């Protein structure tokens, strides 16, 4: 079962009420928000209503909001060394 990864790129301000309602139904509240929905004809129909505003990808897994946020986290540029005894304790 695959998922649609839908990102809102353009706002629906000034568009017909219907577009705003479709975005609300999809769970997109502000620009650059990302939601995941199972691939189904009903979600496809919703995407078609707002196709000018969103970016869509197909993916195998649904991610949580935190996981989506962590994708954007830059590499810290360092790593913390641990002593042998600490590593043993973790095991």
């Amino acid at each position, binding site marked *: 079962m695959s998922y649609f990864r839908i990102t809102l790129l353009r706002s629906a301000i000034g568009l017909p009420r219907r577009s705003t309602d479709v975005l609300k139904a999809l769970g997109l509240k502000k620009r650059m928000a990302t939601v995941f929905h199972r*691939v189904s004809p009903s979600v*496809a*129909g919703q*995407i*078609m209503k707002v196709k000018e505003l969103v970016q*869509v990808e197909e993916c195998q897994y649904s991610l949580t909001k935190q996981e989506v946020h962590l994708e954007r986290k830059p590499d810290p540029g360092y790593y913390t060394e641990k002593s042998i005894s600490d590593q043993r304790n973790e095991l």
Partner: protein
Amino acid sequence: MFKSTQALFGGRPRGASPPPQKARQRKRLRSVDRVVDTVSAALERNGQTSKAVNRWFAEMPREEEMLPKDKYTLFDKKEKSYRKSIHKLPKWTRVSQRVNPPGF
């Protein structure tokens, strides 16, 4: 140094969109095509179909199939030439306007 620019050759025709605006319009048309393609491919992989997607493919031309006339202008019965620049369409960057009325 002489550089042949549009401005030196008398500028663009009245009512014509500047090239960067036209480029952005083509980019938006392609992005809509991409969304519909992705949705259609995903549904096909799951053995499903959608009425809205099928209708889009049956009725709407793709960006590369469209004539420049249809990409950058739209029909208007009140204009002398029956065409006006697409930026006069309200919310034109967020609506799909690809086909003409029958006979035009």
